[in-house]
């Protein structure tokens, strides 16, 4: 077996008395698409935010391509990293938010090139060329110099995807990328994500789009009350769930 791209081991996370993640193990191989489904409040978003250390985990560990996230391992000790080092680690991890979070005062192009320039210090002409290419890939060649507020929700989310890809990340995390969109705009974003999946990008997607999971996912993970209830290929988890809770959830979503 090859080295996993993302690995979570026994991850716990609490907000005060609220125990959100109760020992999550997850393994994502390079080039794989993992879709996480589950009822609201099950800890899906928290799980994703723990992967890039937007949330600090209480117990367990997360590695990306063998590198501990948020910590440096030396012997049998994990040393907490400082913010600067964590920020550097995050450039390996693309993140797409439910609410897009584009920078409204910057143009589409400026949004895409900001992090590669300032966080990765790559040369501007290379980054701009890549940005224009990525924007073409997501179908927004004509919006390069527009401001985010001048775009529809679907277009904004596609810019956000291009912005995440501009870092050339090892894995891209999607936190309910279509939940804030009008129904007729969901398709265009999913289409871009399918294209990405086909091109071999390692992705972890939290979503309620069961159809997308069935079509694109290599692995579907069902999360409930902070635990992985079951996981496997979509045909198994979505069509022949073994666990009662999975069946109940899928019954409600359909």
């Amino acid at each position: 077996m090859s080295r996993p791209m993302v690995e979570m081991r026994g991850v716990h996370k609490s907000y005060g008395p609220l125990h959100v993640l109760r020992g999550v193990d997850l393994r994502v191989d390079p080039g794989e698409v993992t879709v996480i489904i589950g009822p609201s409040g099950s800890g899906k978003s928290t799980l994703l935010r723990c992967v890039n250390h937007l949330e600090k985990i209480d117990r367990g560990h997360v590695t990306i391509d063998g590198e501990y996230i948020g910590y440096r391992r030396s012997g049998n000790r994990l040393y907490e990293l400082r913010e600067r080092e964590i920020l550097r680690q995050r450039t390996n991890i693309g993140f797409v938010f439910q609410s897009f979070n584009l920078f409204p005062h910057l143009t589409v192009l400026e949004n895409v090139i900001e992090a590669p320039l300032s966080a990765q210090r790559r040369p501007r002409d290379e980054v701009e060329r890549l940005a224009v290419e990525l924007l073409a890939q997501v179908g927004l060649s004509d919006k390069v110099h527009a401001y985010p507020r001048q775009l529809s929700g679907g277009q904004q989310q596609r810019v956000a995807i291009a912005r995440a890809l501009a870092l050339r990340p090892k894995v891209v995390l999607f936190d309910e990328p279509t939940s804030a969109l009008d129904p007729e705009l969901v398709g265009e974003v999913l289409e871009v994500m399918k294209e990405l999946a086909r091109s071999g990008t390692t992705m972890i997607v939290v979503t309620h789009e069961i159809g997308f999971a069935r079509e694109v996912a290599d692995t579907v993970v069902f999360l409930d009350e902070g635990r992985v209830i079951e996981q496997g290929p979509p045909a198994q988890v979505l069509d022949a769930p073994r666990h009662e809770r999975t069946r109940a959830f899928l019954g409600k979503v359909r």
Partner: protein
Amino acid sequence: MSTTAVTPTTPTAAAEEPRVVKARHPWRWVATGIVLVLLAMAVNALITNPAWDWPVVREYLFHPSVVSAALFTVELTALGIVLGFLLGTVLALMRLSRVPLLTSVAWGYVWLFRSVPLILQLLFWYNLGALYRQISFGIPFGPAFYSVDSMDLIGPVTAAVLGLALHQAAYAAEIVRGGFLSVDPGQLEAAAALGIPRRRQILRIQLPQAMRTIVPAAGNEIIGLVKGTSVVYIMALPELFYQVQVIYNRNGRVIAMLLVAAIWYLALTTVLSIAQYYVERRFGRGMARELPPTPLHRARRFAATRIAPRLAARRAAQGAAAETSGGGGAP
């Protein structure tokens, strides 16, 4: 509703499209009239009453001593605002930091300098020489490396600038902090998720967005300080208000000289208000789908959409009247 046509009330209405009759607002005209009369009365009272001493106002408005006093007022304002906002920004960042001591020191500073009246603070700085004859830099409670006579270091001008700036910093700190708090937390989260370095997050992502909230409040503060510098007169510094007092104590034309000062303050704040408008436009980029038009644009648009069509309509009506007298409904 069904898709059947609306039943016409009269046979003629069926033939034509209904015409829109604009609503009339007679009371708006009445109110406009009353205000115009009041305005005329005010202007009349200003111009015709000889007690205003307009010739004296004209004589002193650009008197060299008044102009240089106005420049000194501008200088005090500029120094007070620039230093005040520099220190205020540092204080705001301290207050927003995760270091408990920095947070509480910043809070304490704002508490102290907002609580003591500016005029008192100015007098304290003015009398610093009496309070501390020597100012030394060194280890606290230990030896000093460098000492300077406080009278040499802090003259009246420095005392005034220091007083204004330190007082201003307390208000600026709150304004800057409010600006940072007004930025959507998702912005910082996105910047952090992209790995953008911390300093860059503040300068490139947060600050420009915070400026939208900071600029209007800062505009208030700058205009407040233009007038606020007049309290410096107690230190006998030749700023605008002190200078006109000196002059009217000599020539006895109190009202005229106060009017001279008022006109200068008006002129200065007008310039600042216009500047603020354009600065706000600059930081409004990307916030609205389209930037709001400037007054110049608006005037042009008004001419194009309101006045020009009316002229054209009048011309067309004249042409039509000359051509034919009938022709209402379609044949």
